[in-house]
């Protein structure tokens, strides 16, 4: 395979247009099938019993009464999911999170499950399971968990990454450090230094579709799993490993997915459903309630971050330093590490140092959420940057432009940047009419920048050309927001045919090779690369077939605008052959025509965004209103610009919710108080204005069309942009996210000396 991924700077016919998505009609008519919309004959209802305690030893589980209840077909505990992880610590954590083994580690931790003939029976069965707990002291706050006297969540954890091996176990699983230069010296050269501490509360991805699956295990050792997931191949691997199956015997079909945002990258209930089905010998459908979604799945880290930035009078940053503490739930993670890498990634810094601490707490296992860990770090850094600009008497945009990273800059996390978009997004913001619009009383404007790496990874695509010349495209990355449309555009572009001639589907795990999941903004980046490669392979065959039909050498056939064209003087009399015409003869010229591609999509281009927002604050109540919001982001190349805008708008809206109202609230008893959409307040339609977008296109040199991932970066700047706007409107620096009305009012009162 000689696939050349380099950017070629071609002109596009299909890419960049805005057709209707291929899965659209099913979704507006109610026909599309999501996780809970699928049923199998003889299916049972699965339900999970969850710990009401934040931290407790499980002394005994008696399931005998539940098993005797009429209609109950299986009851399982951790015993039914034996440890087959063979020393793989990360997989063991996933197993323990699916079903608590010796201790319940958070309110909502699964301890047992049942499968019964209907929901009512399953609910009754749960009530009949007797669990004897020994309640242990718990800790849910990230700073408190780091204290020496804090209750220890896992006594086998010794902090990794310290100079000296610790002698005592700790809730801090890892220390990580990034940077270059000498910050001490750098601060010595600063005329102004801002130093502040920030906190952000834990949020949830808030997808509207609860986790749902249907599992069917057969006595011959094969199984099927229908599930809403961001990565069915990864779910297959995890489930197969945890249940002791061969991966190829487990066929996983990804349903339409009702939102994931990182929250559907881990298995939660799927191994439980499979174990129930195995025991009951019947299919089991397991759908989480909203309460379970909040208590047991998803959340981000809560954080506590200290930032120090120094600058000379001329506005040059001389040093920047941050200490970041991220909660990981009760299992080791690398969340602070990502925060430490991204914190200062927007800037050109000679002296920079970030230190991250991963902290265990009695909360659900932290999962990725759209550019995981970056928004909190950006909130702290961009707030301090704004404050420093003020002290310097500089415009916040100009200050950022002066210090923005550019091609050739050594990033704060290590490598040197190629062509990047931070400067252009800042210039676009500087010139945007939004920046010049007048503000009314009690209104403030804020802006902030954000960075995300973007990822690639393992990807397969099958492109099959039917005898009628229509093309089916089977991809392995789950479509979370319109990628079947963008990948169809890419295939149409490469083949030179009409978008309507194609149909893209997401293939199941038995129909296509392994694919990493749709995360890290990789869906369109990776699968478009594989689609281009598959299309080029198909074109090679199309040329061969045309050569056969003409009885000339394939070297004399080129592919132009969906047609085989014979070149050279001696073939002057030959007309063009369309893809359709070649396909029609394929039965005689060598059989079905297809292009396949299996590759690792590397070279995902980093992504930057700058956001502007106007917020009005009611000084008497602390209430806020988002008046105007603008997103400027580099897309590399927007394959389907409408869906790129959608990603920008969606990320901004999620960031707005995080900034203003969303938070996990735990009681003193360690129980989650707001496990529902009533009190976990994601933005509603009337909370938001239109969200303006501006797409910049700075081509990614490592993709044939210049595509960068676009999904995640848009959630990085909002926390900071809104904090800066609220601070400007209220006249007081906000340091605690979410900036709920009680926090804003308290800050205003404190500033007034009230």
């Amino acid at each position: 395979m000689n696939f050349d991924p380099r950017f070629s700077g071609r002109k596009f016919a299909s890419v960049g247009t805005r057709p209707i998505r291929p899965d659209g009609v099913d979704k507006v008519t109610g026909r599309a099938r999501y996780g809970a919309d699928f049923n199998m004959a003889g299916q049972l209802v699965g339900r999970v019993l969850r710990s009401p305690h934040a931290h407790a030893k499980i002394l005994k589980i008696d399931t005998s009464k539940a098993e005797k209840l009429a209609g109950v077909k299986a009851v399982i505990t951790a015993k039914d999911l034996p440890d087959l992880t063979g020393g793989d610590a990360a997989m063991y954590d996933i197993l323990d999170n699916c079903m608590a083994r010796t201790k319940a580690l958070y309110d909502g931790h699964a301890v047992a499950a049942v499968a019964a003939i209907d929901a009512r029976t399953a609910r009754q069965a749960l009530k009949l399971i007797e669990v004897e707990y020994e309640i242990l002291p718990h800790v849910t706050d990230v700073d408190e968990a780091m204290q020496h006297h804090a209750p220890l969540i896992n006594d086998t954890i010794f902090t990794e990454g310290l100079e000296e091996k610790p002698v005592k176990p700790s809730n801090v699983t890892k220390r990580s450090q990034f940077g270059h230069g000498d910050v001490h010296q750098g601060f010595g050269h600063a005329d102004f230094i801002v130093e502040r501490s920030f906190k952000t509360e834990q949020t949830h991805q808030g997808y509207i579709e609860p986790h749902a699956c249907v599992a069917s295990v057969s006595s011959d050792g094969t199984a099927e799993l229908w599930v809403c997931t961001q990565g069915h191949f990864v779910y297959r691997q995890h489930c197969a490993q945890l249940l002791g199956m061969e991966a190829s015997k487990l066929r996983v079909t990804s349903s339409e997915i009702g939102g994931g945002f990182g929250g559907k990258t881990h298995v939660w209930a799927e191994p439980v459903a499979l174990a129930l089905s195995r025991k009951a010998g019947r299919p089991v459908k397991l759908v989480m309630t909203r309460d379970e979604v909040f208590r047991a799945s998803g959340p981000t880290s809560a954080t506590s971050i200290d930032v120090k930035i120094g600058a000379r009078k001329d506005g040059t940053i001389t040093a920047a330093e941050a200490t970041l503490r991220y909660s990981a739930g009760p299992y080791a993670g690398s969340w602070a590490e990502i925060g430490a890498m991204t914190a200062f990634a927007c800037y050109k810094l000679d002296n920079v140092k970030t230190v991250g601490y991963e902290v265990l707490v009695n909360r659900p296992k932290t999962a990725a959420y759209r550019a995981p860990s970056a928004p909190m770090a950006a909130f702290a850094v961009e707030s301090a940057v704004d404050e420093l600009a003020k002290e310097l008497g500089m415009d916040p945009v100009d200050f950022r432009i002066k210090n923005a990273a550019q091609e050739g800059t050594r990033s704060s996390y290590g490598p040197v940047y190629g062509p990047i978009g931070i400067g252009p997004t800042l210039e676009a913001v500087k010139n945007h009419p939004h920046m010049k619009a007048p503000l009314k009383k009690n209104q403030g404007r804020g802006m902030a920048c954000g960075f995300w790496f973007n990822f690639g990874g393992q990807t397969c695509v099958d492109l099959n050309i039917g005898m009628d010349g229509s093309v089916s495209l089977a991809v392995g990355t789950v479509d979370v927001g319109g990628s079947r449309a963008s990948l169809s555009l890419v295939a149409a572009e490469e083949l030179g045919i009409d978008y309507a001639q194609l149909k893209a589907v997401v293939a199941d795990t038995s129909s296509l090779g392994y694919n990493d999941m749709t995360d890290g903004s990789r869906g369109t980046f990776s699968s478009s690369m594989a689609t281009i490669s598959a299309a080029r392979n198909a074109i090679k065959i199309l040329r061969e077939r045309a050569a056969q039909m003409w009885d000339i050498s394939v070297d004399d056939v080129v592919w132009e605008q969906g047609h085989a064209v014979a070149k050279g003087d001696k073939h002057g009399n030959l007309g063009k052959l369309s893809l359709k015409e070649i396909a029609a003869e394929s039965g005689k010229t060598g059989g079905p025509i297809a292009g396949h591609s299996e590759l690792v999509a590397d070279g995902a281009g980093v992504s930057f965004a700058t956001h502007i927002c106007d917020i009005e604050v009611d000084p008497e109540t602390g209430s806020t209103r988002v008046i105007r919001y603008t997103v400027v982001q580099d897309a590399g190349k927007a394959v389907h610009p409408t869906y790129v805008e959608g990603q920008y708008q969606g990320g901004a809206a999620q960031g707005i919710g995080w900034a203003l109202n969303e938070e996990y609230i735990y009681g003193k008893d360690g129980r989650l108080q707001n496990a529902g959409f009533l009190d976990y307040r994601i933005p509603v339609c009337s909370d938001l204005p239109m969200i303006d977008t501006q797409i910049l296109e700075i081509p990614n040199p490592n993709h044939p069309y210049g595509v960068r991932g676009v999904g995640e970066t848009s959630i990085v700047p909002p926390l900071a942009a809104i904090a800066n706007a609220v601070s400007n409107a209220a006249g007081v620096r906000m340091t605690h996210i979410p900036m709920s009305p009680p926090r804003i009012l308290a800050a205003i009162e404190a500033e007034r000396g009230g």
Partner: protein
Amino acid sequence: MAGIAVSTTINGDNIEYLCQPDETLLDVLRDRLGLTGAKEGCGTGDCGACSIILDNRLVCSCLVLGAEAEGRRIETVEGMAHGDQLHTLQQKFLEHAALQCGICTPGFLIAAKDLLAKNPDPTEEEIRFGLAGNLCRCTGYDKIVRAVQDAAHVMKGA
């Protein structure tokens, strides 16, 4: 528990079913009648994904008992299109890309249909408040509001 026999009208069709007294209309639609267009996002009336129209009132079907549907008239997303002719709102949602994952879309379409039936010429603010009972986590609502505005425009002209 004996099942309750219910006779009702769904999308113009006479339908009969048996349900338990504690069973919601949403569960009946999805699990007994195979109408899975209405979704359960929360089960507590906070997300609007299960929106249906019951006797000309927009309601969350998760907050209605199946037994209550006796003798009433129910409209769901499955009844919006006429044959292969999409409702203007459905068409506009597609054209404006007013959906990403699409799980909230049936609820939004039903809520928007009810909104435009009662207020054919809504302002942006009326649309936003009219649809505030429907949560969308993907789009930031921008394209949804635009799709409804455009649909209202087309439907007025029709």
